[in-house]
């Protein structure tokens, strides 16, 4: 499949800026990369795609000096280079935006952008500080970061934190900018803005390596696509060959299966399962929120970043106190003060932030998967480890989680496989009402399709599902109805026939529509 003869516009015009030859890297129990090669031309936007665990992040970490390869060579403008640490790579103008967020929670936005590189100026601290705020404001404006620059990043949503990461990398003014799933928690609008910036950078001669599981985006932005499979090169697509099917075929290594399609059966006897009435979840809220979910219905929640979708879910789940409002499940009111109460009532939340809320990173895959189900796995207070392992193996097979063994610390899995573990924790159980917050963030297309099938299956069993997603396709493809939020308020509700990109965006940006 590798075709060295293939020529792109870039290959004609110049020699590669970066060339990677025969890189291999092993971790205990895993050969993450074997003999991988890659080229990158000046000003080129190269997309790297592959299934979860294919080795994309590992390769990028090697390029950015975070990891050292076991074998292979990196050439920069034809000269062999070796990056012993991140600063080495940065000195050569290579910056990496990590897949996992690497921000200091208590530091504010500007402080994070310039962490470790606070402009060196003598004089009073205040002056120095003001300068970083001035510089940070430029990036913030460019990327559309709306929160004040003095906000500690721990108060930002994951999507906003992602923008701060991007600003940090941009400020490194690099020759090569590597983005490892930068859009996984961005909404279409923020993604569009990011694309403008990427194109602008590329015109200025900065080369971009772009990793994403949103293949439609890749289709839009990439000049060339390089595909990894099981730690090796699986092939390359020039600009005119890039399309969804071709990418999937190379990624999976066989003809693609039919992508999962939900069948929207006409609702038979509509039976309401969930009532939320007069919910107020923050102080500045003008109007309380009320909605109903029917048995077997998938209710979507759309909105821009920071529109309060996650807060809504967290309030229902008992993580944040609500100001007022009632929640009814079936006919009965459920009083939820903590996640414990919610789970007792059969309400489960799959959280957005896998690192902080979803996983115990140092603990094993097995223990993470079984944690919410432990009560059912005990006899006389003792955990039946055999049953526990059976459960873990079942979810691993079900969701195609790539791990060398059950006892692998979950923090060592690839990002997508970590996300699958978070899903597996909860899909192992039978909820009455499932709250999903960006459930497929960072998951490859193949598995995504399987997860949609699982969600549909749950719906068929009569579970009510509330799905927050920034991925339009997900909202369009899965939801029976959609709530749209705008600045912490419910902006409107769209029935199935009205769910379109335009209607959602209109409501999400504070506009009105007529039904």
């Amino acid at each position, binding site marked *: 499949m590798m075709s060295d003869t293939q020529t792109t516009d870039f290959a004609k015009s110049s020699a590669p800026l970066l060339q990677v030859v025969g890189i291999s890297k092993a971790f205990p129990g895993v050969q993450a990369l074997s003999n991988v090669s890659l080229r990158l031309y000046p000003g080129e936007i190269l997309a790297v795609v592959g299934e979860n665990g294919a080795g994309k992040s590992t390769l990028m970490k090697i390029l950015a000096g975070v990891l050292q390869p076991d074998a292979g060579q990196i050439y920069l403008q034809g000269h062999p280079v070796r990056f012993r640490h991140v600063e080495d790579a940065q000195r050569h103008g290579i910056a990496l935006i990590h897949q996992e967020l690497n921000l200091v929670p208590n530091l504010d936005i500007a402080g994070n952008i310039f962490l470790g590189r606070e402009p060196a100026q003598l004089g009073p601290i205040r002056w120095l500080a003001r300068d970083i705020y001035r510089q940070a404001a430029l990036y913030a404006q460019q990327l559309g970061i709306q929160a004040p620059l003095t906000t500690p990043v721990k108060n930002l949503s994951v999507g906003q934190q992602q923008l701060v990461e991007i600003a940090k990398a941009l400020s490194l003014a690099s020759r090569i900018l590597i983005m490892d799933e930068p859009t996984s928690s961005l909404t279409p609008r923020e993604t569009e803005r990011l694309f403008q910036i990427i194109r602008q950078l590329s015109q200025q001669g900065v080369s971009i390596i772009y990793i994403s599981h949103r293949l439609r985006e890749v289709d839009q932005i990439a000049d060339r696509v390089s595909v990894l499979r099981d730690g090796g090169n699986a092939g390359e697509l020039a600009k005119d060959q890039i399309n969804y099917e071709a990418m999937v075929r190379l990624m999976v290594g066989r003809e693609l299966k039919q992508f999962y399609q939900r069948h929207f059966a006409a609702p038979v006897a509509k039976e309401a399962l969930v009532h939320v009435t007069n919910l107020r979840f923050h102080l500045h809220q003008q109007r309380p929120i009320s909605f109903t979910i029917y048995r077997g219905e998938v209710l979507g929640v759309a909105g821009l970043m920071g529109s309060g979708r996650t807060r809504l879910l967290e309030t229902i789940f008992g993580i944040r106190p609500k100001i007022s409002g009632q929640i009814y499940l079936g006919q009965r009111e459920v009083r939820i003060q903590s996640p414990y109460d919610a789970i007792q009532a059969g309400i489960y939340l799959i959280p957005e932030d896998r690192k902080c*809320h979803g*996983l*115990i990173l140092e603990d094993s895959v097995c223990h993470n998967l079984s944690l919410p189900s432990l009560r059912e796995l005990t006899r006389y207070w003792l955990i039946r480890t055999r049953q526990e392992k059976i459960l873990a193996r079942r979810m691993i097979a079900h969701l195609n989680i790539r791990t060398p063994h059950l006892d692998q610390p979950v923090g060592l899995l690839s990002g997508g496989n970590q996300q699958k573990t978070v899903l597996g924790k909860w899909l192992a159980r039978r909820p009455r009402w499932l709250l999903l917050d960006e459930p497929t963030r960072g998951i490859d297309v193949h598995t995504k399709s399987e997860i949609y099938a699982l969600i549909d299956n749950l719906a068929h069993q009569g579970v009510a599902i509330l799905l927050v997603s920034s991925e339009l396709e997900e909202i369009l493809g899965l939801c029976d109805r959609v709530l749209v939020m705008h600045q912490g308020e419910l902006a409107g509700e769209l029935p199935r026939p009205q769910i379109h990109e335009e209607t959602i965006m209109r409501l999400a940006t504070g506009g009105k529509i007529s039904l």
Partner: protein
Amino acid sequence: MKKLLGLTVFLALLYAALCIARGQLPDYAFHYNLGRDIGYYGIMTLEAGILIISGGIDLSIGSVVGLTATLLPMILLAYGETNAAYQVFAICLVLGLGALIGLAHGVLITKLGLQPFVVTLCGLFIYRGLARWISEEQVMGLGNRFAQLKGLLYADPVGPFPKFFVILLILVGVFGVFLHGTLYGRYLFAIGGNERAARYAGIAVDRYKILAYVICSTLAAFAGILYVMQHNSALPSNTGSFYELYAIAAAVLGGCSLRGGEGTVPSMVLGTAIIWLLDRWTLTLGIRSELLSTVVGAFLLAGAILEEMLRRWQSEPR
């Protein structure tokens, strides 16, 4: 598993070095006393370790030992000389006091959100002061009375083994199963590993954290009782001082991470054993006993450095 093996090997080496230094195999009395000390201090390592695993810390262990060891003779001597039921009552009272102290710590930490370090540091001062005030700095001794009780808890060996060692083994069994086998133990590990994720998983985090503090202080009270059984009396101003630090040191030496979520019961015992072998070592080599804490500190530091180097070596390119 690797850690357990490493600790065992280290312990064996230490023992061998000790034998060589003495020029002969140590006698029964030596082993008996060593077992007694490991048994006694191992109890406190266990309690400190359980807390550390759940992400907490207790600096008041020594003061609780001091307070309970001061109180017990006072209560016992009031009526208890011949009344066995009263003796049982007195012991339960003291254990209950420990539980109450733990409850107070736990509630302050979970419900008010205070830092464990601060709360238990305050405890360290408060209980020590209370012990001195209640006793008016008078040493109350059991003398040679209460032989039956002392025999039960301290004096009578079980076969060749000192009673304290056997008590430790029982506790190791109980807490080993508790921590590594039951739901509650798993929850404590989860809370120590990532408290927020544990909350999101529907674990009633506060409840289990309080439980850990109650276990810890109750065991500290138990150690206070055993102290009186061994020494007949307690010095209100001094008994138990620094015990918490030895306990934390042993737990850390045994592989507990102060970040929480890591550690095993058997390796805590090994950590304790290493510290007490070091103690015997300093004696044998004629190092002045004042230097014991220096030796322990140096070994702890060496252990930490070694572990960090191993970690780096494992993740570095070769």
